[in-house]
């Protein structure tokens, strides 16, 4: 998406309000956490920034300054924590801070005030180990606290207690990621089916797809009311399908007792979805693919595409601080990684969606962002940035071996982004 299109989506509120620069700091000492190649642990650096906000301090995110560095109030506590975490930091005098501000003012950089650590919720079934989900892995590694919620909490209205919600590989079409037929008999699948069916029954839904549609609708409302949604992997695509399928049966017989509506494609209501439109559904219950939204189709032998690399867009920090925050990284080009949904077909994107990263020349994009109502959503395709071929049963990724992972940085950008303070709207 071009920058001028982006204004169409976000321009009005941002131009009117935007993100404030911090008022000049008093000439005391500050702590700079650089995010360029001198940083020894990029991922934990986010945790240091987050916990400093949690402790009541404010900080600044220096967009594009040394690849998205943080400027925090200096304290012995933060220095100790950074040393324990192996995070590189520098103490800056007042004059040093002035130099930094001068460089920011003169370049495509911006300083954004980080004010309040968002309350984070991760949507995941009970018993899911943190290592099953790239975001919980990143949060855990960075030391960012989160709470796990699932269908009951969503249906009973507890979402409103959180500012940030993450979805990962949940199948919101209620078809158990369409592994039901191919992995029949596997203990993990049977447990997943039991868990979902039990939850649907206890909440008074006739079947799992009906429950998931309701959950999807409540997530939509959550965003509309000004909250932040970040989704990865198959949660992106299936959330969209569940929202658009308000009038269609898109679930296979095994999940709701009735076969998929052969005319489901025509009954989809794309005005309900966040990001996609006019997708064609995968009708075979044997193929673990949901639609042609995913460009890579990892489980569809006929249509599977090879992995390439995706490139992050370079936005104007002073004009487009939101997408700039989301793409802060010390690498522009990142190797791609598979997921049940790996990427998003360009020809299925709604107009107005901001493309944050794409594979150049390929008919798919990797990382997208947009607004709905007063809130925002961001989608990143793929399952685990450091396990490109991720297979069921693979050992968990140990992030201490990938402390400088550019892919994981994208995830953590999203966690910190809601901490940025919006200026009061000017009248």
């Amino acid at each position, binding site marked *: 998406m071009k920058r001028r299109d982006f204004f169409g989506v976000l321009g009005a509120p941002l131009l009117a309000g935007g993100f404030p620069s911090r008022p000049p700091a008093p000439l005391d000492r500050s702590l700079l956490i650089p995010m360029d190649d001198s940083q020894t642990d990029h991922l934990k650096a986010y945790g240091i920034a987050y916990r400093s906000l949690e402790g009541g301090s404010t900080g600044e995110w220096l967009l594009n300054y040394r690849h998205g560095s943080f400027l925090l109030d200096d304290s012995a506590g933060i220095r100790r924590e950074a040393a324990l975490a192996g995070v590189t930091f520098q103490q800056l005098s007042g004059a040093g801070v002035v130099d930094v501000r001068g460089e920011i003012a003169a370049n495509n950089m911006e300083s954004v005030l980080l004010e309040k650590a968002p309350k984070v919720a991760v949507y995941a079934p009970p018993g899911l180990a943190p290592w099953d989900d790239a975001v919980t892995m990143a949060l855990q*590694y960075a030391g960012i606290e989160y709470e796990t919620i699932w269908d009951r909490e969503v249906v009973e209205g507890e979402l409103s207690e959180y500012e940030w919600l993450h979805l990962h590989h949940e199948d919101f079409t209620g078809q158990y990621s369409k592994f039901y037929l191919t992995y029949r008999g596997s203990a993990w699948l049977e447990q997943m089916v039991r868990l979902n069916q039990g939850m649907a029954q206890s909440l008074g839904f006739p079947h799992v797809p009906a429950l998931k549609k309701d959950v999807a609708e409540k997530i939509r409302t959550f965003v509309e009311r000004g909250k932040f949604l970040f989704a990865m992997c198959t949660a992106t695509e299936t959330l969209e399908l569940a929202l658009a399928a308000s009038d269609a049966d898109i679930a296979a017989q095994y999940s709701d007792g009735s076969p998929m509506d*052969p005319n489901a494609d025509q009954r989809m209501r794309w005005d309900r979805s966040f990001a996609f439109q006019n997708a064609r559904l995968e009708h075979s219950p044997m193929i673990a693919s949901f639609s042609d939204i995913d460009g890579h189709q990892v489980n569809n032998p006929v249509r599977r595409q090879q992995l390439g690399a995706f490139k992050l867009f370079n936005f104007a920090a002073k004009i487009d601080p939101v997408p700039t925050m989301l793409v802060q990284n010390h690498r522009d080009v990142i190797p791609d990684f598979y997921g049940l949904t790996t990427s998003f077909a360009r020809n299925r994107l709604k107009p107005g969606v901001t493309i944050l990263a794409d594979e150049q020349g*390929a008919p798919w994009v990797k990382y997208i962002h947009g607004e709905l109502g007063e809130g925002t959503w961001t989608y990143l395709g793929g399952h685990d940035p450091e396990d490109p071929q991720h297979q069921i049963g693979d050992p968990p990724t140990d992030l201490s071996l990938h402390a400088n992972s550019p892919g994981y940085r994208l995830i953590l950008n999203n966690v910190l982004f809601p901490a940025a303070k919006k200026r009061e709207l000017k009248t």
Partner: protein
Amino acid sequence: MNAVRSAAVLLLMLAASVTRPAIAQTQADPTPSQLERRGRYEEAAVGFKAILDAEPGNVTALLGLERVLVNRLDQTAEMLRYIARAIEASPLHEQIREVDFRVAASEFGADSAEAAFRRWGDAMPLSAAPYRLYAFWLGGQGDLEGALAVLDRGDERIGNARIAQYRAQILIMAGDWLASASHWRRAVDLDPAYAQAAGSSLSRTPVEYRDVILQTVLGIRPTTSAQLLSADLLVRWGRPEEGWTLLDRALPPNDVQAAALLRRFADRAGQLRTLSGARARGYALERLSERQTGAEASRTRVAAARAFADAGELEAAQRLLNRSRTRGSETDDAVAAATLIRVLADAGQLAEAEVRFFEWETRLRGDDVDDLRQRIAWGWILQPELDRAAAVLAKDSSVTGQAVRGWIALYRGELATAKEHFAAAGPSSQSREEATRRASMLVLLQRIQAQSSPPLGEALLRAARGDTTEAVEQLEAVATTFPATAGRAEVLVYAGRLLSRQSDYENAVRVLDVAFHADSAGPSAPAAELALAVALVKLGRPQEAMPRLEHLILTYQESALVPQARRLFDQINGMIPKS
């Protein structure tokens, strides 16, 4: 990864084949496949159509057009005339019929699928392919009963092993492993060539069904094919010795077939990397060697002997090697002799190993000579016969020989000589593990100013021989003879690590704590503190480990052990998975 590679190969093949001279293209023009890859589907479709206009039966172009029109552009109707023309051009081409079926089924539903299936069957009445495609399509729709009904029709018309194979696969989709097994049995009875596919398919049987599956495959009167399939399944399921019993009974008289079966079995058993797997590999290779002659038989016997040696079956290994030495070529004899000497040394029969080594020394390969000499020397060291070990090494001028000499000197208590030998051996000779062990010992020795210390040598030798309790007692005692900042802390850290290795964490904590406080500003302090934290975690006292790790990370920031400490710190905090 394999799938990805295969897909890459397939793409290359497609790209290559559609650039055949049927349609001339300039070098700069992208091929239709390249256009497709770039998402320029309309242009790709035009390219594929042009190829098909010139050559209606070009299967590669037809498949490309199908991908673009049906999967990407939603212009299925366009496809139909190209399919019709392709069928007209090559009415008996199965891939074209497959496209016809796929398009009919996926775009026009069950009736069209049935019609395409019938057209195909009428044109090629003895082909099993239409039954496969139709049955799997129905299975894919969740209509497993319909799928089985189609295969019933196939059975009536053809009734061959292929149909039985498809039925077995559909039954696995339905989760009916038992029924599937009986159809796989039928398929392999009809045509033993299906044994590989059957083994691969049934290898995924959930553990709880495996014994019943085995009974089903074998039946009341096990056929040869059924026994071979069962043997294959057993080795795939990690039960190689049971598999061997079946395989040995069912081996065909034909040497070529038997050799293929034995090799495959031996490979699978070896891949298990278990004692049982190694033993079964040994059995299979020994049997294989009996069906071979000359040098080939000798080589196989040596391989069998190695497998038996890996399994700890030293007598069997020796028996085979003794036979090998009398039958092979000179090179094969040398290989067999080296294996035999290795087996003898590992079994502790050092005197015999030494005699055979000196008998063969001039005929063995250079690498084998050094390896065997040092293996025997290490054997003597552990007896402990240090003089005899030194004598074996007398003619060894290799760098690795220097390292072994260093250990002999160390165990004699000649610390200065040991340091010289270790330094001469360098940091990278031998395996990484051995080089690390040697470097650690060199670091320890460099802190000790004494030129010799027979009690330390004796204690370290005890440790090398596995007598940890006595060794630790001696090390604690000898440590007190060194100054706190010149060896005491290092020796105690060594003792503490030995205790940890023996899972005696309580005592390890005690010794390491003393080690740490002996010289908390010295170079061994981070190592003492890390080992202490690890032992505390092992004792289930991670909260006591945390302040140790914090202290280590914050106090010894330049220590090479900080990353390990931080990793443990993160694991205790649940920030990364436990390794």
